């Protein structure tokens, strides 16, 4: 009986059996088959999974991991039912059979079905292709159809090498593969994406070698693809294909106009290819001035050094041959000054000089537009008339000095005003950083930065806002603090006003799937409004356990609708004032999580005090507050301070190095839950006040390294920057008075400065500049930082120098400090990194800007020791040859005035924050 075959196929979830049955039997009018198929299909649709279906139908042969509905949908399709959801994915090997069945249903049916298939052209590629080959539909024109081929769907579905499949299908060779050069694709489907998996490049090159596809057409197609403005990383694939095809000199010459045109595409990889190709063409065929004037402006303004250099070389050659439009060509060279690398600018300037460009007023006029972009060392080489007006004008210090003299005596002493004024009077340089330990913290009012919520409306609004932005930890703290203060004062309208919030919190709690801070916050909100504490699933992630514990403690307290004090809520500057904490601690009893939080908020900034806790209880506000926490019966803790000596173990060797977080402190707080100890020391930043935890992150990418630090360096940098930018760390962390430049400040600056990410390094430049401007960072700090990092090879000089240059652009004080920092670091860098020329170029610029020479013997010795013909050696010679400039004295007075101005600003900020109370 035929139907028995179908039952058997259904019983075993056997697609082959099902399809073969329908190929062999046209059952469109067979009521028995209809009944079987549609009943089963309906039942399958009603059942949520295969297990449920097997129980309901009595079928036993289906894997519980398969989609039990699919075979019935296929059978329905065979009987002519059109269902937009039926997919042909993965059934490529049955293409011919399915076509046979489809043909029975008529053209209109097929057209409708093809419409459905085209919704997902990629998955259904093979069937659409088969329909097209059999004349059942027109060739699909959707980009997705060609992406299906690009992604190798036929190869996967037919279990046949893709190259073989293509060779067997002339239609693909004649049409489809050429569409590859018109369709960019996306992050998931593109030629670049599938290169590793499929190797389209090799396939096309091989077919071209065999003459199956036209080589000339292929070269032309790559050029057209390069003109289409695809994203650079996808365009690179076409560039590479073009180069792998290795055009002969004749072919290149024939494509000359295309290459000229490609130079204007605005895409760096394409311009690279085009300029290199033109360089090759030029070997056998001179390029005209008109060609170069048309093609090279963008290449000269390119970010890629190689493009600029190649363009300069082409121009040089053209000028040597006595080209026409000489002035235009020379003017065009100025475009290279847009590049920020001094060596590139140097090459362009040398080219101008070589061709006597400075005799031409046209060129000089053009060059004048670019002088501000030139590196200082290059500016010094310009013709005298073009040197930009010196920034070294005498500073107007009279008003500044008058304001500084008005600073009270004790503050004058703290800020080292007297030596600074002496230096200013004598015209010498003064860049010594402040001793921040001597300077009292800004006395902002408690809550000044914390901005407590004022009333119930604020509280309700803030709760809603937090549900949208759970990373705003400070907002959560403000909410918790307000709940403790007036959350219990619920008016008659409270329930109605809070109803939308309750609805949102309940919805949020139901829909949270990921590890998040939200469930416990929702629990707090629900408890507060409804008076009942909802149950919240235990978080999988131990990182959040302390947070969870604290939130649930708060939830239970708000459910009671009584006022309460929260020991750990931060106050001003996102920190907890010791005095306030002591006061709070005297007001009641606190749970362990709350106390642990308060200790964390308090402790990281004062290692020495914590060290002395057990010896001198009650010796000060902070100490007293900590002692009170420690004496609390709910608190079991250990606290220790690490002056870290880091150790990294690589396969075969172990390295020790002085920790660059030497001043950093690590507090282990272990309240009752012993596993928290691990959390603190091995987690990414989970809490705004413990940035040092970043340094103890684990090594997912480098399991071979057993200890933390170097291997996870980039990840730590990213995490630190992420913490800062997502507001978990705030700028005031950079300026804690109790530690020089603050532990987190050092951390932030150093990690950002040496990070792999350009944007973060730009930010580091700003931090560096600010830190120098207000006396937090001096030359010693810069020296130590550079010596530490460069010595260990943690960061390349190329990576560091843009930030230093950006910082130096801020003013003479920054220039002086950074110059001295680099000079100090030179003798401490034992083995020079290969790209040391970048740092030397920066030093050269700083020396020129400050008009000074290398006056430190150790540094001179190091520079003199750099021998050879390398770029670094040439720079070292240039640095040693720098002579004292006449504007040096003015520059130094400017720098000293800037340092004085920074000190004044610090005092004035402190005074304004103090509210006139005096200290």
């Amino acid at each position, binding site marked *: 009986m035929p139907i028995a075959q179908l039952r058997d196929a259904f019983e075993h979830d056997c697609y082959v059996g099902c399809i073969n049955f329908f190929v062999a039997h046209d059952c469109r009018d067979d009521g028995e088959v209809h009944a079987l198929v549609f009943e089963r299909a309906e039942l399958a649709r009603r059942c949520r999974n295969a297990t449920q279906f097997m129980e309901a139908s009595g079928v036993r042969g289906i894997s519980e991991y398969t989609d039990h509905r699919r075979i019935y949908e296929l059978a329905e399709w065979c009987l002519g039912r059109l269902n937009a959801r039926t997919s042909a994915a993965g059934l490529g090997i049955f293409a011919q059979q399915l076509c046979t069945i489809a043909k029975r249903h008529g053209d209109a049916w097929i057209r409708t079905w093809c419409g459905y298939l085209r919704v997902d052209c990629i998955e259904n590629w093979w069937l659409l292709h088969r329909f097209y080959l059999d004349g059942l539909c027109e060739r699909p024109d959707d*980009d997705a159809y060609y992406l299906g081929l690009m992604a190798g769907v036929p190869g996967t579905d037919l279990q046949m090498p893709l190259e073989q499949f293509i060779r067997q299908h002339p239609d693909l060779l004649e049409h489809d593969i050429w569409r590859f050069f018109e369709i960019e694709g996306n992050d998931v489907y593109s030629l670049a994406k599938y290169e590793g998996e499929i190797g389209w490049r090799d396939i096309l090159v091989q077919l071209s070698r065999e003459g199956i596809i036209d080589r000339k057409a292929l070269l032309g197609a790559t050029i057209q693809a390069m003109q289409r403005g695809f994203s650079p990383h996808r365009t690179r694939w076409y560039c590479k294909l073009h180069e792998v095809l290795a055009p002969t000199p004749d072919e290149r010459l024939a494509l000359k106009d295309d290459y000229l045109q490609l130079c204007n595409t605005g895409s760096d990889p394409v311009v690279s290819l085009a300029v290199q190709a033109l360089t090759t063409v030029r070997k056998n065929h001179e390029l005209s001035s*008109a060609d170069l004037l048309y093609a090279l402006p963008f290449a000269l303004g390119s970010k890629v050094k190689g493009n600029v250099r190649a363009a300069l070389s082409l121009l040089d050659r053209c000028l040597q041959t006595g080209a026409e439009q000489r002035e235009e060509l020379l003017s065009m060279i100025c475009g290279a000054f847009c590049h920020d690398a001094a060596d590139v600018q140097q090459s362009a300037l040398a080219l101008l000089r070589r061709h006597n460009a400075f005799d031409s007023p046209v060129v000089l006029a053009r060059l004048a537009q670019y002088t*501000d972009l030139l590196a200082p060392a290059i500016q010094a080489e310009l013709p005298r008339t073009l040197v930009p007006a010196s920034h070294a004008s005498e500073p107007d210090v009279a008003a500044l000095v008058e304001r500084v003299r008005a600073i009270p005596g004790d503050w004058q002493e703290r800020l080292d005003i007297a030596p600074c004024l002496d230096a200013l009077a004598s015209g010498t340089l003064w860049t010594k950083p402040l001793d921040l330990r001597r300077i009292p913290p800004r006395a902002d009012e408690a809550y000044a930065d914390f901005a407590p919520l004022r009333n119930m409306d604020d509280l309700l609004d803030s709760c809603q806002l937090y549900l949208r932005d759970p990373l705003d930890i400070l907002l959560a703290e403000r909410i918790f603090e307000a709940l403790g203060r007036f959350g219990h004062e619920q008016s008659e309208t409270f329930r109605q*006003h809070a109803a939308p919030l309750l609805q949102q919190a309940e919805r949020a709690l139901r829909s949270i799937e990921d590890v998040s801070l939200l469930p416990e916050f929702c629990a707090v909100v629900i408890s507060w409004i409804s008076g009942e504490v909802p149950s919240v699933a235990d978080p999988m992630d131990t990182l959040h356990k302390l947070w969870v514990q604290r939130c649930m403690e708060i939830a239970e307290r708000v459910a009671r609708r009584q006022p309460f004090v929260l020991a750990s809520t931060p106050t001003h500057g996102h920190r907890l004032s010791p005095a306030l904490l002591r006061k709070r601690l005297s007001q009641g009893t606190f749970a362990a999580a709350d106390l642990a939080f308060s200790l964390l908020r308090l402790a990281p900034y004062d290692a020495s005090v914590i060290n002395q806790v057990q010896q001198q209880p009650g010796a000060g506000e902070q100490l007293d507050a900590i002692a009170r926490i420690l004496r609390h019966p709910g608190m079991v803790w250990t606290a220790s301070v690490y002056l870290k000596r880091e150790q990294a173990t690589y396969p075969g060797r172990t390295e020790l190095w002085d920790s660059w977080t030497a001043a950093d402190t690590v507090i282990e707080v272990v309240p009752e839950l012993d596993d928290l100890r691990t959390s603190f020391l091995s987690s990414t930043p989970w809490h705004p006040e413990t940035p040092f935890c970043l340094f103890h992150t684990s090594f997912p990418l480098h399991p071979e390294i057993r200890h933390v630090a170097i291997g996870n360096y980039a990840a730590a940098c990213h995490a630190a920057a992420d913490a800062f930018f997502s507001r978990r760390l705030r700028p005031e962390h950079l300026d804690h008075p109790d530690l020089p430049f603050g532990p987190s400040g050092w951390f932030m600056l150093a990690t950002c400065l040496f990070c792999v990410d350009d944007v973060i390094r730009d930010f580091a430049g700003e931090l560096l500049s600010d830190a120098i401007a207000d006396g937090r960072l001096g030359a010693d700090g810069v020296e130590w930082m550079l010596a530490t990092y460069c010595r260990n090879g943690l960061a390349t000089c190329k990576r560091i120098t843009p930030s230093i240059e950006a910082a130096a652009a801020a003013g003479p004080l920054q220039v002086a400090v950074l110059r001295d920092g680099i000079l100090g670091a030179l003798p401490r860098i034992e083995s020079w990194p290969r790209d040391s020329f970048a740092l030397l170029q920066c030093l050269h610029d700083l020396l020129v800007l400050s008009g000074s020479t290398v006056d430190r013997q150790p540094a001179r010795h190091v520079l003199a020791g750099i021998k050879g013909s390398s770029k670094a050696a040439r720079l070292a010679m240039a640095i040693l040859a720098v002579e004292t400039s006449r504007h040096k004295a003015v520059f130094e007075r400017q720098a000293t005035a800037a340092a004085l101005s920074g000190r004044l600003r610090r005092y004035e900020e402190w005074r304004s924050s103090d509210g006139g109370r005096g200290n």
Partner: protein
Amino acid sequence: MAAEAIDYAWCYPFASRLRKLPQGQSLELATGSDVLDFPYFLHGRLLTPHLTAQQLLLVSRVAGARFYMPPSMLPAGALLADPVVTSGAGKLRFEAFSQCCGVYCRLDLLSTAIDGTFMRRGTTNVDFNRPMCDALAGIRPTDRVLLSVGRDRVELETDDQRLLERQVDLPRRWYKGFVEVQSYAAAMQPVFEVSGPIACRFLQGLAQQVPAKSEGHLVLRQNGLNVSRRPLPNSIPCGGIERLRPLHAISHHALGMRFYTCTRESVLGCEMLFPESRLLVIASPHACRGFSGEGQAISHLLRELDEKTLEELRRHLEEAEQLSFEALAAETKRPKVDLLTAVATLGSRGLIGYDLHDSAWFYRQLPFRPEQVDSMHPRLEAARALVDQGLVEVLSRSRGSLTEAYVQGSGVKHRVRELPDGYRCTCAWFTRHQGKRGPCKHILAVRLQDQDACRQ
């Protein structure tokens, strides 16, 4: 959920092309129409052909660009990749809007860029096909290029002059964004201007990859333009500034670049200045955020002006071609509030654009029929429905103005309050956007109710 779309069909009498002539080349841009009336705007000679060609290519590139694509989304076929051209006020303007609805680009060719005659005023699409763009890329500075936008006589009989039909499903958000961007432009102010070389270096340094959501602050320093991650004095907020990277392709021709910002939102305007032309780019606050749904003009639309008044104002603008707000007020002698409503209404119908450089509105009728976009502001419609159904419950008034009300939401009553810094609502939409994308429907309902009460 599939995006709501409007079906837009139009055609061109011929394919735009760059034709070789004995005396040079002729760039023939085909103007489109949906009623077989193909306008003829201009005929003349391009005075800076290479630059103009590069600028047109850039406009075309922006029109076809998708600076943000949600992960794993398949690239849809190009929406409206043909720019919209407007002839009038002695300028030829090419407008384009990116596929991701986050970047608006307009090239204003001044009359000094063309030695020729403006035949008539008007707005329509121009065909920018691939072969023509490829040919445009080949135009050299020394080439002599004639430009015609449209043709004086269109003959469709010959075989090679077949009508080119185009049909796209324009997402409503694309159209809304295109018109919404004008209200942003009107609220923008210039902040700083830099020279061409500085602009070139700045654009050169921008990353090629556009992050979905990046925040930055553009600041002018001694060493040029920088993007800081912190707000600094005199900095302007700029999200997804990498979207300006395509401008690098023509920056070496620029005299300078002027930056504008909008006080309401971190929308960035950037105008590249050339001797004979200007290129304006306006970018949304983030790459992943389009201009549609911003709802900046919706508050002005609460008041309804009668069609007669609107028509009168429209005629004024059409006749003048370009008018500043002050000039419009002086000419029409209408109250400012009426003009704001009129400008918002005309803007939402795609009838006017804003020229940042001249601080003036210019008349241009976007080539979409307004009836195709039956409801541009669903929020406003929903608010009207709430009022009509009596779902706004007034709680308190102060000095005749409504200050607190409940508005029925789904399953819960939302509370709307008027505070010194504006209205607040307890709904999820308001919480998410905090008024940055215009008021929610509950706030609009309360304001409508208040307006009705005042009228009575």
